[in-house]
């Protein structure tokens, strides 16, 4: 259970766990919580779209789909079938830095979960076929259509990569990839990717929930202990990028209103300045009291404003997205966004603003950690990015300790007007309607 130490100012959460390493390099993290009859197995592989070979954008995510296509021991849709037959479910996601798989279900499924994860970590590659690849390639291309091409403004996140990062940079292409690259992926690519990255010394495994730790350790040892360690390929270590590659990009989409997007490079995840940038994003865009909400939405100039800080291993992205009300130009909005950034760079937030930001962030942290799966994932994420699953306390502290002047400082340092990349989405001009007899 999420333990708490109450202080005068706020409750400080912690996630009690036990961590150890198998001889093959697999990191194992056990976190008990007997509150509900549920267990989670969360497996984090340190491989994401940043590790894709040139011409194979989207491959890490495509591979994630293929991990559910069966092994010789558990062929076909057995992974899902067995799990669902006993009340469990699973899913996975891929991002720039990592791929994460999670299994959730009643406690009696734990040993089966561990066996299935070990089975595919050991044997997925040898069972790969062209049919499986073709099928999941179709599913992934459908996902691209649904999540990007047919979603209003959905192509911005794809264009953003080349707008900010130079050719050859690990973040210069999107996680979903291009249709061309997805089409080019071969079975050999799949087998090679599996052999390179899906090895115990590139993974961490969290077991969380209602289980007996001695039993869990025994099963982990039995099923994962025999998997061989392998040397990992060299990873790209790009030089820091501070300037946007394209000052402006213009897109058209089937939307009614245009959209202004401003993007900057920003601090990497969990690194100096990352928490401050997240607080800046909240101050400007989160809730009806946010500065840009007041200036743009309350004033009737915009229908929507969204501000975010997205930290990654090799750097971060700070973004402001605004959709105007009818009759308002993007240039008007652009001026106001830059004015607010300049105001913040020159004068720190008020004490009341800082109090609200800290309180809202603390509550959001609690809410986020309520589901067992989120806690399991948090332990893996902390391990992967900081080298310590016990980083929750530090994570909370960096927000609690952020000072008002430090928010101004990061804005001044990272968000100057001349370093922004603008992506503008214009509505597609209407076509003459076809008149049928």
């Amino acid at each position, binding site marked *: 259970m999420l333990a708490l130490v109450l202080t005068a100012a706020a409750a400080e959460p912690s996630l009690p766990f036990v961590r150890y390493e198998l001889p093959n390099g697999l990191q194992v993290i056990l976190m008990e919580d007997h509150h509900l009859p549920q267990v989670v197995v969360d497996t984090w592989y340190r491989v994401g779209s940043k590790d894709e070979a040139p011409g194979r954008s989207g491959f890490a995510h495509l591979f994630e789909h293929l991990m559910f296509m069966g092994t010789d021991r558990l062929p076909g849709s057995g992974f899902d079938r067995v799990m669902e037959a006993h009340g469990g479910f699973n899913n996975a996601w891929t991002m720039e830095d990592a791929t994460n798989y999670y299994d959730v279900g009643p406690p009696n499924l734990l040993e089966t979960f561990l066996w299935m994860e070990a089975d595919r970590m050991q044997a997925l590659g040898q069972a790969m076929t062209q049919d499986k690849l073709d099928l*999941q390639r179709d599913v992934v291309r459908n996902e691209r259509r649904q999540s990007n091409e047919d979603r209003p403004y959905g192509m911005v996140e794809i264009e953003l990569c080349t707008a900010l990062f130079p050719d050859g940079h690990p973040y210069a292409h999107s996680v979903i990839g291009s249709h061309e690259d997805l089409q080019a992926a071969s079975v050999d690519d799949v087998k090679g990717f599996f052999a390179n990255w899906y090895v115990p010394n590139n993974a961490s495994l969290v077991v969380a929930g209602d289980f007996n730790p001695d039993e869990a350790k025994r099963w982990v040892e039995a099923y994962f202990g025999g998997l061989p360690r392998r040397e990992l390929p060299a990873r790209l270590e790009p030089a820091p990028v501070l300037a946007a590659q394209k000052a402006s990009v213009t897109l058209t989409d089937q939307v009614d209103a245009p959209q202004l997007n401003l993007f900057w490079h920003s601090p990497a995840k969990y690194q100096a300045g990352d928490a401050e940038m997240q607080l800046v994003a909240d101050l400007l865009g989160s809730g*009806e*009291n946010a500065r840009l909400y007041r200036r743009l939405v309350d004033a009737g100039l915009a229908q929507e404003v969204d501000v975010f800080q997205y930290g990654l291993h090799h750097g971060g992205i700070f973004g402001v997205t605004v959709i105007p009300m009818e009759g308002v130009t993007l240039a008007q909005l652009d001026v106001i966004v830059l004015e607010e950034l300049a105001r913040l760079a020159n004068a720190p937030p008020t004490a009341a603003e800082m109090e609200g930001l800290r309180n809202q962030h603390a509550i959001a942290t609690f809410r986020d950690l309520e589901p067992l799966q989120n806690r399991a994932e948090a332990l893996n994420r902390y391990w992967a990015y900081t080298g310590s699953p016990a980083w929750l306390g530090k994570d909370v502290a960096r927000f609690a300790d952020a000072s008002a002047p430090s928010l101004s400082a990061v804005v001044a340092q990272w968000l100057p007007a001349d370093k922004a990349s603008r992506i503008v989405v214009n509505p597609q001009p209407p076509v003459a309607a076809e008149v049928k007899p």
Partner: protein
Amino acid sequence: MNPLLLALALLLAPAHARSMKLPPKPPPVEVAPPPVDPLATMPTPGPAVPFVPPVPETAALQNGVPVWIAPSPALPIFTLIVSTPRGSQLDAKGKEGTAALAIDVMRRGAGTRDGAAFAAEVERRGLSIDGGVGPGGASLALSGPTSQLNAGLDLLADCVLRPRLDGKEVKLARELLLAGLQQDLSEPSFVAARTAASLYWGPTHPYGRPAGGTEAGLGRVGAVDIRKWHAAAWKATGASIAVAGAVTREQVLPLLEARFGSWARGKDIDIPVPAAPVHATEPVYVVDAPDSAQTGFFVAFPGLARGAAAEAPTRLGTIALGGTFTSRLNALLREEKGYTYGVRAEMDQERAGGTLVVRTRIRADVTAEALTELNGQLDKIRAGIDAAELAKAQGAARQDVVEALESQAGVAGTLADALAFGRAPDAVAMELARYAGVVVEDVTAPMALWDRTHAVYVLVGDRKLIEPKLREQGFTELSFVVPP
């Protein structure tokens, strides 16, 4: 050698060997046993541990408003939901969206604070107040740190009992709702669902009118309408309060009594809900969405009202059809055919009726093929499901309950839902017991609801691309419509 094998070997050996003198026994050799592959056999899960969800504590305020409390000290936070059983059903004809707009404006200034001051106070304290509205009810949910419970209840009581409903805030909120609606109308799935509801229930039926409003309806709603809706909807009669989190009954009841105990009961309003129209072999309705890479599907069938007798077996059969990754529709349309990223079958239930629905987004170029395959599966499900599918659906339904109880917002929402639909405090436990008690034969009869001849099909896609193939595949009865 094993003595038994040795005896067998001697018995079966040629006769001349029988009298053969046995050679001296060689010294034992340490031979390592063949390596055992621990992954060779998948372990079979043992029996599931029984789960009985906790039952909330119950109480009532002086004016009769029921209060259900689920204390959970694990985290110093809480969620409290105040609900009324009156929602967008009260929207006047031609003013669709009144309730949705009103619930938004109730949070934009209340008591002594104008909109800006109210938002600042809520955020400064780490609180949030969110509104929700449907045909048969509306709610306001207060969440935040337990240390702010007292102050938060002051703010919530202001929203419920003393909202300002200023004309300026109404205007702004309306503009934002309209802009959001315009954006939503770019989404094929949103358009498909909205169009299907209107066609299935009828455009004036409370379940057919969009609770979120229409462009025309919202355009006609003014501050006077908002005030009228608030006065009619937010009375103590029928209202309820659900609380979950680090609170105790002793702590929260006096605080609620002080704020809501004298809330006037008012006169209840009887809002009759017409029966659902009966559909018989309608055309496939198509909304043209030029250049869409995918076609949004929404198919509505006659369903069940909340609390209907066949609710549990119908839900389990629906999960087997399209509720999980390995459900019939996902297995076919996603995993075997690669037509979609996902497809879902589910139950939409209201107090006086409901629908069974299938929703998905299909690659535009295989729209007709997918529709044919979908129809094949709909015909098959009417024969019922097998034991393995039932067990899977029962597990999924149980897991849904466990997940809902993971967060305080989920617990409060579950309690608020049970209160709104007149269920008992142990409704969740009873629901689990009902799911567990369903046998295969129970599911067969309700699956007759998936009768294509009584369904309304809506496709939102690129007409020039999908129409020829639909006609080619025999879907000749097409009707082209615009969304409501």
